[in-house]
């Protein structure tokens, strides 16, 4: 027996194993594809990012801080934080309630609502800014009424906040709708049958189930709120120190050839983007682990 086995082992042709699995490309193709991807990333992502930071620090760290601490720059940072600080919580409330309604209930006009939520994605931000000008501007539909009551929306902080809210509208809702649809209502029904009130059910059962999706939506929403340029640019009026957000301030500085100052503020936005990416990765990783945890043990059993 032993000899037979050795014989067969000796005869085993090495080529009997295919060089690549059915879905794997040849080595050359793989290297070319990876090469293209890397070149693309370097050219369009890493190079610009590194230039932002190198330009910002070109005249030394002292100048960098001085540029950031200019009153106008500080005002722009404050305004950006304010706009995001209002837009994000409002969109969380709106996003959760809209996703809740869409994910858990059947009602007339549901698909219309879904389309409307997506609208800010499909409309150019400049157009949405213009809509606000046409509505609330001095020559706009509501302009005269607002002027009589001494309310200024366009070229003022309220306009900027509203434009930001509009542009960041879909992020939270879009993230949660598929999640809530997939979860169904059984857990909520169980909670209600056990005597929980509506709010208790929401905070103790529904919210914990969507928390990672919600956090992910908030991160994306916040990133967009702070980085928004087009819509805000139209309604802002570019009043230095008063209605300039960070992206707008960067543009002004750049147009005035204050490159170091422009890149200093830009580096803050870039840092924000990097931090967002980091948090996003962590959140995705944790969410995935949670999903893996809940499916790992279901091996043979069906979960409908």
């Amino acid at each position, binding site marked *: 027996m032993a000899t037979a086995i050795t014989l067969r082992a000796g005869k085993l042709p090495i080529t009997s194993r295919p060089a690549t699995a059915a879905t794997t490309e040849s080595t050359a193709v793989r290297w070319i594809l990876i090469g293209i991807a890397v070149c693309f990333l370097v050219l369009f992502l890493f190079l610009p990012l590194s230039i932002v930071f190198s330009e910002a620090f070109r005249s030394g760290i002292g100048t960098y801080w001085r540029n950031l601490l200019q009153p106008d720059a500080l005002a722009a940072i404050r305004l950006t934080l304010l706009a995001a600080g209002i837009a994000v919580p409002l969109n969380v409330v709106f996003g959760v309630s809209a996703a809740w309604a869409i994910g858990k209930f059947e009602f007339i006009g549901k698909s219309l609502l879904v389309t409307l939520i997506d609208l800010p994605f499909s409309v150019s931000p400049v157009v949405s800014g213009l809509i606000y000008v046409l509505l609330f501007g001095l020559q706009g539909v509501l302009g005269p009424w607002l002027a009589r009551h001494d309310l200024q929306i366009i070229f003022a902080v309220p306009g900027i906040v509203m434009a930001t809210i509009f542009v960041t509208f879909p992020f939270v809702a879009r993230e949660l709708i598929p999640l809530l649809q997939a979860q169904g209502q059984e857990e909520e029904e169980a909670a209600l049958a*056990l005597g929980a009130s509506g709010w208790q059910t929401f905070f103790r059962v529904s919210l914990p189930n969507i928390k990672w999706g919600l956090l992910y939506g908030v991160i994306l929403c916040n990133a967009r709120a702070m980085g928004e340029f087009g819509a805000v640019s139209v309604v802002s009026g570019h009043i230095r120190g008063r209605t300039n957000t960070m992206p707008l301030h960067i543009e002004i500085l750049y147009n005035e050839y204050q490159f170091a100052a422009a890149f200093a503020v830009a580096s803050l936005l870039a840092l924000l983007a990097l931090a967002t990416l980091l948090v996003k990765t962590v959140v995705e990783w944790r969410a995935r682990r949670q999903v893996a945890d809940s499916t790992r043990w279901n091996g043979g059993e069906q979960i409908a």
Partner: protein
Amino acid sequence: MSIEAKNITKRFGQFTALDEVSLEIPSGELVALLGPSGSGKTTLLRIVAGLEFADSGTVLFDGEDTTQRTARDRRVGFVFQHYALFRHMTVFENIAFGLKVRPRGQRPSKEQIRAKVDELLRLIQLKNLASRYPSQLSGGQRQRVALARALAVEPSVLLLDEPFGSLDAKVRLELRRWLRQLHDEVQITSVFVTHDQDEALEVADRVAVMNEGRIEQVGSPDEVYHHPLTPFVYNFLGNVNLFHGRIDEETPAIHDAATGELVYVRPHLLEIHRQPNGGSNFRATIKHINSAGPLVKIEALTEWGAPVHVEMSQEKFRDLQLSKDEAVFIIPKELKVFHKKVV
């Protein structure tokens, strides 16, 4: 607590899920709602629970109208087919949930909650798994946790929607015996929905057989099995051979007359003989024999070309020495005749 559903009607769009259904459940009884899918059994259960509301009709608990009350106020324990455990909570937290969400005045103390949960964990024999998450439990364990969670709030009725529907056959058998035992211990009015007739007949005190939004028959397992009121009940509660026949004065005879009465015979009530007995026998040819299992299942073709199923004991099969393609006589020992149009 007794439950009474009166003239419940429920429609989903064009589909009538329940059509004027009435059902009375005395206090302390364990009742099965048995029927095929789409027969309205789950809808009826959900209406009793207050998770769904009827278009018309009333639900009474102990004679008191609860039709307008929500699930929260009805104090029912509800067990879902797919468990519906809170996935982000441990087994302990799941069971304690109903006690923790009580208004401050009625909420038991931490120690009381712990004692109650411990007691329930003992009852479901999962004491060492209290800190596990639902995802780390097997299907049978999850269903027991779901049951403990429902019992924790000391409900006045326990409602179970296909409680063993998503478990494999063996666990299923174990759990339903356990449910019967539990019910004997706790003595709480319970209703469970199932499409498995064995489950209903084995576990329940009484069985309500449902079909197409109506209750066909309510009775003890014995009653519905041995004295079915309608062809549907007879058909649903076991395998059955359907013939057309004519009822003679004394002995009902089976013919191939398509115009005759509907005659139902269970496979184990048909006897195979080599010789005719002069009575209501008919000729058949054996087509297939399956002798795996406690009973031998034989498929034959009648003289008028209809398939017929016969079941006999292994012993009898050995005595007869039947083989495929053999011509035999089949004698019904007991037949059930449903007069056409009467039911």
